[in-house]
C-alpha cells in the first residue's frame, strides 16, 4: 500500500521529524526485536536516506555516517521521551538498533471491563477544566482506544471553579519540570503581605483540596519552598535561555511535597494532647495521617505553631489537656472571642 492518495503540500520540519521518528519505530517494530544496522536503516527508510545523502554531498561518506548516527541518537531520545524504547548497542559503524514489542507496548495491557469504565469515566468526570485533559485523552487512546466507543454511564462529576490563569500556570510549570528549567515569577507572600520576584527550580506539582501548588528549590532562599499558584502574579518566565537542563532533579521527586499541617510548618518541638469526640478524632486522623495520633480518647500531635494549633483545636470543638502553654493560648483566644461577641454590634 502506498500513500500517494491526495497527500497535500510539503511537510514542515517538525512534521518531517515526527514522520522520520515514527518510521524508525515502525521499521524496527515490524522486525520483531531484531537488530538493524545503520546501513539498512538508511537504505530502507527514505527519510533517513535523505539525512545521509544530504551530508554525503557536503563531505563524503564518513561525515554522512556521522550525521546519520547523530540524527538516530536524537530520534531515539525523542521516542524515549514518549515512552517508546529503542535499544541501541555497539559503537560507531557497528551501532545497531532494535525495538522489541515490549519497548512499544506495556507487558500487561489488558484492562478489565470495570477498569476500562473507570478510566474512561474519569475523563468524562473531569470534563470541565482539568489542566491535564489533553495528555489524559492520549493516555486513554493509547491504552483502550478512543473513548467515544465506550458507552457507559458516568459515575462521577468533578467540577472546579474555572480559573484559566491557574490552568495556564500548571501547563507552564509542567513543561518546566519535564525540561528541568529554572523559572522566575512574581509571588505574593500572604504572611508578609508583599510581592517579590522568586527564582525556582520546580520539582513537582500538587493538588490539595482543589488548590494547585508547585514545590521546588528557591535559589535565593536556598531552601525547598512551596508556592500556591493562585498567589503567582503575572507570567512565569524561564530564568535562562537554555532549552532544557538548568538543574538536576532531586533524588526523591515523587510525591514528597504535600502541604504540611499548619501547626507543623517548622519542625515540631512540643506535643499536645487534645480531647475531642470520637468521630472528630477519626476524621482528624484521616485528614492528617501521620501527623495526628490517638492516645486513649485523646488526639495527640506534635507542633511548633501554637496559634495555629490553638485555632484548629477550637475548629474541632476540642479541649486542650496539655501542655499548659497551649491551654493558655486557647483560653486567651476564648476570652477574646467572648469579648468580641459580648454585645450586639
Amino acid at each position, binding site marked *: *500500500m502506498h500513500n500517494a492518495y491526495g497527500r*497535500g503540500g510539503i511537510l514542515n520540519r517538525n512534521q518531517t521529524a515526527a514522520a522520520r521518528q515514527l518510521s524508525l519505530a515502525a521499521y524496527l517494530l515490524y522486525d520483531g526485536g531484531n537488530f538493524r544496522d545503520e546501513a539498512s536503516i538508511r537504505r530502507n527508510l527514505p527519510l533517513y536516506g535523505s539525512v545521509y545523502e544530504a551530508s554525503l554531498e557536503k563531505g563524503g561518506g564518513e561525515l554522512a555516517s556521522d550525521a546519520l548516527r547523530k540524527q538516530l541518537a536524537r530520534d531515539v531520545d525523542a521516542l524515549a521521551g514518549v515512552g517508546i524504547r529503542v535499544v541501541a548497542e555497539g559503537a560507531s559503524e557497528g551501532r545497531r538498533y532494535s525495538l522489541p514489542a515490549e519497548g512499544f507496548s506495556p507487558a500487561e495491557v489488558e484492562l478489565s471491563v470495570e477498569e476500562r469504565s473507570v478510566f474512561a469515566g474519569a475523563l468524562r468526570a473531569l470534563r470541565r477544566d482539568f489542566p491535564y485533559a489533553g495528555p489524559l485523552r492520549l493516555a486513554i487512546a493509547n491504552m483502550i482506544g478512543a473513548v467515544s466507543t465506550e458507552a457507559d454511564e458516568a459515575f462521577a462529576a*468533578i467540577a472546579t471553579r474555572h480559573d484559566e490563569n491557574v490552568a495556564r500556570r500548571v501547563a507552564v510549570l509542567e513543561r518546566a519540570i519535564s525540561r528541568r528549567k529554572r523559572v522566575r515569577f512574581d509571588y505574593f507572600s500572604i504572611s508578609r503581605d508583599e510581592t517579590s520576584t522568586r527564582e525556582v527550580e520546580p520539582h513537582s506539582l500538587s493538588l490539595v483540596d482543589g488548590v494547585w501548588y508547585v514545590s521546588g528549590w528557591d535559589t535565593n532562599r536556598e531552601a525547598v519552598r512551596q508556592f500556591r499558584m493562585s498567589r503567582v502574579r503575572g507570567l512565569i518566565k524561564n530564568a535562562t535561555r537554555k532549552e532544557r537542563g538548568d538543574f538536576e532533579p532531586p533524588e526523591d521527586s515523587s510525591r514528597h511535597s504535600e502541604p504540611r499541617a499548619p501547626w507543623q510548618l517548622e519542625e515540631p518541638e512540643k506535643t499536645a494532647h487534645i480531647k475531642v469526640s470520637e468521630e472528630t478524632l477519626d476524621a482528624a486522623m484521616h485528614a492528617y495521617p501521620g501527623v495526628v495520633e490517638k492516645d486513649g480518647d485523646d488526639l495527640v500531635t506534635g507542633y511548633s505553631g501554637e496559634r495555629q494549633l490553638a485555632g484548629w483545636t477550637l475548629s474541632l470543638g476540642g479541649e486542650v489537656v496539655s501542655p499548659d502553654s497551649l491551654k493558655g493560648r486557647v483560653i486567651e483566644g476564648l476570652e477574646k472571642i467572648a469579648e468580641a461577641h459580648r454585645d450586639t454590634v
Partner: protein
Amino acid sequence: MTGGVSPEPLALEVALAHYVASMPEGKDVSLSDLAFEFGCSARDVEGALESVIEVEDRDLTTISGVTIENGRLVKHLSGGYEKGFRRPVRLSPVQGRAALLALDLVSRAADPGILESLRKKVRDAVGEEVPEVAYGGRGEPDAAVSEAIDRARNENRVLEIRYPSGEEVNVRRIEPALMSNIEGVWYLNAFCRYADGARLFRLDRILSAKLLEERFEHRPDMEMKTRFEDIDPRRYAAKRAVIRFSPAIARWMEERPELDLREEHPDGSADYILHYTDESWAAKRVMQYLGEAAVIEPEELRGEVRRRAAEMLSAYRGRA
C-alpha cells in the same frame, strides 16, 4: 487545548498511529471529531496525521492506507506496519501523570480495588518512575464507605448510612446515584428514603455505610447536582452570616472559597459573607480565628459563639 498541559512532541502522532492502525478498512471519521477525542485542534490532528501518512519504507510499506479528504480521515487499506501499532502503546511521563492524577481525583467515586489495579497498570505502561502530581485533601478516602457506595450503585442495592444532622446522627436508607466533587470535596447524589427526596450528602460526613440486600429501581427523573453552581456552598447553604475579620488576618480570607467579600474597612478589617447550614459548624469556623473574627449578624449565630465560648471557658476554669 487552551490553557492546559500540552502533550510531549510526538505523543499525538504516536497515539494517531495507533488509532489509524486500529481503524477497520473503509471507515472514515471527521477531523473535528478526532480533534475532540484527542484533546487538540483539528489543525494539530491534520498536521500529525500528515506525518503518520508520510511513514513509509523503500517498498512503500506504510502504517495504514489512509488519506485526508474533505476534512475527514478515510481508511482505505491496512498497512504492512499495522500489526505492531495496533497494540496498546506505552504512556509518556506526562500521560502517566495525567492518568494517575485523574484516578486520584475520582478516587472516592470508584471501587478502591479497581483503582489500585488500574494505577498499577498505568505505572507499568509508563514503565519508569514518574514524578506524580501529589494529590491530597482533608479526609483521605474512607475505603469502606467508598466501596460500599460503589457496590450499592453497581448492584442497585439500598445503603444504610449514619449521617449527622445538626447535633444528631440520623440513620438513613438511601439509593446512591452519582458522586460529585467540588474543589476537593466529595458529595453523593442519592434518593433519601428518610427525607423522601433527592439529597446531596457530603462524603466525609458519612459516618458509616451498610449495604442492604434490598434492591432499588433506578430513578431516571431524579435531579442530580453535578455542576459547580449546584454544589457551590453559596447555593447549597441555607443561611448567611456576616463575619468581620481583624486587620491582622483579613487578607488571608480572600482565598477561602466559602467566603465572599462584602466590605473592606479603612482600618484594614473586612466583612465577609459566610454561607452555612449548620450553626455549630459555623460557630467553630469563627472561633478558630481566636477572636480575630467576629459574627456581625445574625444574632442567632453571635449568640451561639458567645454561648460556646462561655461554656468552654468555664470548663477550663473549672478544671484549673
